[in-house]
């Protein structure tokens, strides 16, 4: 077996960390020197920014407006900072093939800043993958609502939004856990999600996986993506990693609750990882998630690494993305610390998913097959005038249903 670690030279990925969460995830990321990755951290809070890391720069924005203080949870302020920094951010985006944005949803800065960056990137034709943490439910309904609004907007303008829910982390770590380890766990998962994607695209691994393939994985339009990860080391590394994936899935995704549209399994292991192991991982995970309509598999090898880590991205199409639809309307204006007026949060129109893409993705293929009989699969055909009435009428009549 030949394993090439040659970087894919023409793919330059930008990684943006927003706010405190974004910075912490960036600090955790294992970015390999061979990767062509350009990373930056943006915030408006000087205290959080600190100093730049060797591999990513830090920029404190909106100092003139906020004096280096934070947004205090006000999304409008984060948005104002974005408006004032548009030129600089756009300049940074130039030349990027893809952007991975890391943020903690629910915060004022990231909530206002991230959607604008995603919009600009989209205008520039750069796909954006967001990895966002959702706040604990005990952080209060207003913070959760704010996070949901941010995620909703990002879903519209990004290729995908991978959410890591802190409540899930608490559940996974156990109720007895202290808050700090749970937060650390969440940050670890976020970095794992981002690093999995970077590794797949940047490495020439076991299976060919490029940016085009990645876009196919998440090309669902308005969708929701859950990330699950498992890690193992030593003789039972594969089994341990699989059992962690299954354990979390059982905890979070009862079998009857979820039908997954797309699944991406990103595998990273040492040179001893055999093809049989890879097959076993693929089959076990596919079976657990009911063989989604489209599954993708990517694997990268790190020489000398005895660890096996598996990242599973599960995407579910949410429908929508119709032109003119309003997702968020936060009316009113807010006071400026300098006494000036800050633009009111705008009503964000949902952008069309793009004519061709929207048309292709928004509708089902009209296929009349036995498998379309749903729960009547095991019953005799219900034939009237030559038509099987158990097959949904909209399919037999070729009626397009926007999903």
């Amino acid at each position, binding site marked *: 077996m030949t394993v090439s670690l040659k970087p894919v030279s023409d793919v330059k990925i930008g990684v943006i960390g927003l706010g405190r969460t974004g910075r912490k995830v960036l600090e955790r990321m294992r970015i390999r020197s061979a990767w062509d990755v350009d990373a930056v951290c943006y915030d408006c809070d000087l205290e959080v920014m600190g100093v730049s890391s060797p591999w990513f720069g830090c920029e404190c924005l909106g100092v003139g407006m906020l004096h280096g203080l934070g947004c205090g949870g006000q999304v409008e302020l984060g948005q104002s900072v974005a408006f004032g920094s548009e030129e600089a951010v756009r300049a940074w985006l130039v030349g990027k093939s893809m952007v991975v944005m890391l943020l903690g949803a629910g915060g004022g800065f990231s909530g206002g800043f991230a959607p604008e960056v995603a919009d600009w990137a989209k205008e520039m034709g750069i796909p954006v993958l967001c990895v966002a943490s959702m706040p604990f439910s005990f952080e209060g309904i207003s913070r959760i609502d704010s996070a949901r609004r941010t995620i909703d907007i990002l879903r519209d303008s990004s290729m995908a939004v991978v959410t890591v829910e802190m409540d899930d982390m608490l559940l996974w770590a156990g109720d007895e856990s202290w808050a700090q380890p749970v937060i650390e766990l969440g940050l670890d998962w976020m970095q794992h999600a981002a690093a999995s994607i970077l590794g797949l695209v940047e490495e020439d691994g076991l299976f060919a996986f490029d940016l085009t393939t990645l876009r196919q994985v998440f090309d669902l339009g308005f969708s929701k993506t859950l990330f699950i990860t498992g890690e193992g080391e030593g003789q039972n590394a594969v089994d341990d990693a699989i059992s962690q994936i299954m354990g979390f899935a059982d905890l979070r995704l009862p079998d009857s609750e979820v039908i997954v549209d797309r699944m991406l399994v990103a595998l990273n292991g040492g040179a001893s990882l055999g093809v049989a192991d890879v097959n076993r991982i693929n089959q076990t995970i596919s079976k657990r998630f009911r063989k989604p309509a489209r599954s993708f598999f990517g694997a990268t090898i790190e020489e000398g690494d005895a660890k096996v880590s598996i990242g599973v991205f599960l995407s579910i199409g949410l429908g929508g993305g119709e032109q003119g639809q309003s997702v968020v309307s936060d009316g009113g204006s807010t006071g400026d610390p300098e006494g000036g007026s800050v633009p009111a949060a705008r009503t964000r129109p949902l952008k069309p998913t793009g004519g061709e893409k929207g048309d292709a993705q928004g509708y089902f293929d009209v296929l009349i097959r036995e498998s379309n009989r749903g729960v009547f699969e095991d019953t005799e055909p219900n034939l009237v005038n030559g038509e099987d009435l158990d097959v949904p009428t909209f399919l037999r009549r070729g009626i397009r249903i*926007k999903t």
Partner: protein
Amino acid sequence: MGTAKVSILVAELSPPSKLKIIGRAMVPSRGIRKGRVLNVREATTCVHRAIREAEKSAGVNLKSLYMSISGSHLKGELQVGKAQVSHSARIVTDYDVGRAVEEAKRRDLGPDRVFVQYIRNPFLLDGKKVDEPYSLRGNEIQACFWAVHADARVLREQMQIVNSFVSRIDDIFLSSLVVGRVLTSEEQRQSGVLVLDIGAGTTDFVLYGDGYVLMTGVLDVGGDHITNDLSVAFKIPWESAERLKVDYGKATPVEGPADDWVWLRGDLSIGDRRFSKRAIQRVIHARMEELFQLVRRAILPVLEREDLRCSALMTGGVARLTAIENLAGQVLKMPAASGRNPDWVINELQVPEMSNVLGQVQFALQDYSDSVSGSRKTPGLFGKVKGFWSK
């Protein structure tokens, strides 16, 4: 014994013909789909549970019961028997009518099917409709029956399930007939009325005109098909599709703004999704429009033959669908409304799902009165399925 539920009403009869409902039970159905038993064990369990609950509710032990049947294995057809009037003065006698009736019922169905109901239609005396031909003058008498026959195996399975808990089934009725009886008045049956019972697994319909049952029919399409369509369209589990149907289902053509969205659960958890109300309506409208078109196609020959102008009444769980009357009216090309159970029943029984059992109670009362007075004309269960158990 329906796809969604097994319902039992317990009624107390007292001479001369008074009836009091003393108990009831309604349990979710299992193992029955589209009027057929798919899983005998599951079906048996839920029927048993329903009987136990009914007995407990009424405080009596059920020794016998009446049962209604449905499913597309039931087929109906008009059977006509002719006889020449034998009297020298051309006066129709019992003998002539008897010969015509005998010929009408002579048809052999083969071993797999069994007649379950002969519904008398008007006699034709020299081609002219008459209710009672006796003592009238004419040359030829024709006896007409709307005859319904069933798949013997399907019927036997259903009866065996019930028979394992009660010692006797007094009679079996067509589901459409019992519902038709309870929802319509004599005046409506005279002027013409179509009754649709749209349940979870099947749609039973009966068409009345001139006071007679002109035809009955069953389509294996019901509320479950709407749920299944939604489940397939949006790739969501059955329970979620059912929730969408109940909460946002509407039968009328697509209307409302394009950006009218609903969330499945609304908590943004994984598995929660949003759906366009228009898309939901589009799926449901397609199914319901097709259903009414199929019914229209089935009854059209009778409507044209009888030159009938009638209205439609609907019942069953699907009759709760918003704006279903509008769609039914448009497609069936007749005024349509939701049927109402009789005023004499308590509020808890004033729901579409109870129409069937209430109709059976009415039929049972009729059956009882006829047997007491000795005027019973229908053969009863034994007569209907004579030789059935030996097959």
